[in-house]
């Protein structure tokens, strides 16, 4: 039987799960609304991945003898609160690009905590390659939109969301300072850098 999750670990893994569910719902809705073409295709794969990741976290938490917590808010809500509603697909993808980079950095750093339970590590390993592909396809899609929106406008959107990302993550760090510290103390605190978690990109 694996080591049981602490309440803090259960909360953090549930937070990941909730974020993946929200990502799936968001991209699912957009994929449904999009016209046929490569962006519609990749967005459909993206939302299928996010759904799968939500299942992986559910399964992981269950395998460790716990149930996922019902959490009301995920990262995405905080991004939308801070950044306002993206007005078009280009802005949605610019926000997604920033967000996915943050997620992959966070998952990668969490996965490097020494003495991490194998079930959690296995879940990170299953997810991270998909997350890399998300950054890749969104980057290509943004490039393909340069003719319609202009390269400078796209760059401005990316920069605006990068600033929002810093702001939102700063707030998340502050809000969950104790949870972060406990996570790091709980299983050795030997992760690279030993700094606060989740770390900046």
């Amino acid at each position: 039987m694996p080591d049981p999750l602490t309440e803090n670990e259960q909360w953090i893994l549930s937070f990941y799960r909730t974020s993946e569910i929200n990502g799936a719902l968001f991209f699912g809705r957009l994929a449904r609304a999009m016209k046929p073409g490569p962006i519609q295709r990749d967005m459909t794969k993206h939302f299928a991945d996010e759904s799968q990741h939500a299942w992986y976290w559910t399964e992981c938490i269950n395998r460790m003898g716990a149930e996922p917590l019902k959490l009301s808010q995920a990262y995405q809500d905080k991004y939308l609160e801070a950044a306002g509603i993206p007005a078009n697909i280009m802005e949605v993808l610019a926000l997604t690009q920033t967000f996915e980079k943050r997620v992959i950095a966070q998952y990668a750093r969490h996965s490097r905590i020494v003495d991490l339970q194998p079930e959690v590590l296995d879940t990170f390993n299953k997810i991270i390659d998909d997350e890399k592909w998300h950054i890749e396809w969104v980057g290509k899609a943004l490039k393909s939109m340069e003719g319609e929106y202009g390269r400078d406008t796209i760059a401005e959107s990316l920069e605006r969301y990068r600033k929002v990302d810093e702001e939102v993550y700063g707030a998340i760090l502050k809000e969950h300072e104790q949870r972060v510290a406990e996570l790091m103390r709980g299983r050795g605190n030997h992760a690279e850098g030993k700094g606060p978690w989740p770390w900046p990109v």
Partner: protein
Amino acid sequence: MAVAGLKARMAAFLKLPEEKLKDDVLLTDLVTESFILVEMVIELQDDLGIQLMQDDLKPVRTVGDLVRVIDSKGSSR
């Protein structure tokens, strides 16, 4: 586009009676999740053949705000 027509489209998308879309109602009070608004705004643009940017939406908080912004874009086409 006529304001009434725009509100009818929004009501149909949100599956709400049009009477609920009064000008002073906050958009966030009409939906359970904010990303439903993202989808609605994108669909309205596709339907109406207009393009909005985030700067256009910055001041938008209420149904009336959104109707005015979309209507002005439609008129300027």
